[in-house]
């Protein structure tokens, strides 16, 4: 292989745009600077080119993440996910209150649950009002509380940790999106104030509906709940959850495609974990309430694999859409010329 061919091969490490713009010039410069009889790129040349390529690619990823579109996505996701997390973490307290069980403060399980519920409730309120910094602080405090809860529960109740892992993924994603600097009220404007109001109201009802679940669990104890059973309770609970899900889908269907696709990318890892391991019954990552050897690796790798796959799918789809649009434009231009 000639020196020129080796330089050409080395240039492939550069991002395509940079290579298209400067590849020929760079080749000319490298060949002009080569020593007589040199057959391979020197280690310094190679290191310089690889370092530049890595730096450029990292810069590209960073600029994609921080561009205006991802800021909008972060704003919308923060609105949706803070309400989801607030509802999810408030449910146990509503359930406890409905059967008269006192809140326990004196262990990690108790205070971390209280910190999570109050943190996400505060974050959701601050997002709606537009107090970004307060929302960021509340969100990360809730994430820290959840980390403490997961760490404290793992030696005792691995099944609880595995079943709650989707909430952790959602919480971390939510805290990251909260931390992205956006214009005040951007997420509400993109989603529509009415839809946000509906989502908020239904989140609240879903949280409050937990008192009915508690009654369902206790309806076999006549002295606590009176005459039963009450089959309508299950129907109302399912209808509220369904209504919330439907409102979320309708809200996402109404926004622009680029926004919807990216919000779904961020929702994909927690939803995948919820579908796979959100329940302690029939959970493929548990055996007899204990984690399997592959459980930890799955919990760590699966969310990353899902989000990377989702990003690649969105990237490919949007690239195909651009090519199709260019093709149509070229056809129209040709037709106009003819």
């Amino acid at each position: 292989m000639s020196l020129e061919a080796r330089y050409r091969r080395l240039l492939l490490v550069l991002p395509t745009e940079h290579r298209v713009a400067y590849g020929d010039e760079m080749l000319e410069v490298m060949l002009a600077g080569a020593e007589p009889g040199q057959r391979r790129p020197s280690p310094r040349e190679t290191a310089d080119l690889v370092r530049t390529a890595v730096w450029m690619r990292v810069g590209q990823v960073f600029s994609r993440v921080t561009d205006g579109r991802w800021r909008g996505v972060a704003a919308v996701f923060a609105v949706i996910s803070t309400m989801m997390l607030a509802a999810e973490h408030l449910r146990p307290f509503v359930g406890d209150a409905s059967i008269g069980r006192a809140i326990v403060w004196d262990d990690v399980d108790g205070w971390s649950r209280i910190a999570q519920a109050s943190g996400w409730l505060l974050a959701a309120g601050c997002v709606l009002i537009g107090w970004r910094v307060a929302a960021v602080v509340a969100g990360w405090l809730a994430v820290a509380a959840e980390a403490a809860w997961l760490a404290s529960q793992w030696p005792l109740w691995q099944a609880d940790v595995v079943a709650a892992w989707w909430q952790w993924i959602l919480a971390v994603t939510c805290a990251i999106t909260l931390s992205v600097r956006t214009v005040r009220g951007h997420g509400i404007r993109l989603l529509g104030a009415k839809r946000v109001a509906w989502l908020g109201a239904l989140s609240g009802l879903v949280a409050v509906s937990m008192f009915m679940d508690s009654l369902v669990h206790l309806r076999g104890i006549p002295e606590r709940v009176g005459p039963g059973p009450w089959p309508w309770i299950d129907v109302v609970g399912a209808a509220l959850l369904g209504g919330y899900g439907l409102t979320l889908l309708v809200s996402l269907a109404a926004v622009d495609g680029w926004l919807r696709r990216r919000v779904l990318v961020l929702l994909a890892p927690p939803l995948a974990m919820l579908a796979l391991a959100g329940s302690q019954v029939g959970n493929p990552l548990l055996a007899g309430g204990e984690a399997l050897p592959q459980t930890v690796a799955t919990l760590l790798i699966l969310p990353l694999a899902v989000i990377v796959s989702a990003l690649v799918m969105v990237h490919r789809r949007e690239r195909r859409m651009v090519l199709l649009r260019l093709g149509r434009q070229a056809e129209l231009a040709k037709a106009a010329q003819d």
Partner: protein
Amino acid sequence: MAALADQPRHGYGVIEDVKDISDGQVRLYAGTLYAVLDRLKKDGLIEVDREEIVHSRLRRYYRLTGIGAARLAERSERMRKQAGVAAHRLALGGGVA
């Protein structure tokens, strides 16, 4: 930018000039050079002067824009002042100015 201050130069010309004006202290490689040229071009500090085909290969010459020349003048003036201050203090402290 200093390499383009007096006349337009192509990539290899810039590398050679940088080596000359730094007494061989700075050796630019193609990766770094074209990352810098790309950044300067996007910032409007340099532009393409002309293109030539030499031995079937593209050779593109770059020159400073008006903004680029002003920026270089400002930077060199600032560095000259700082160097002057350093030399003055060395002289006051008994060092070699």
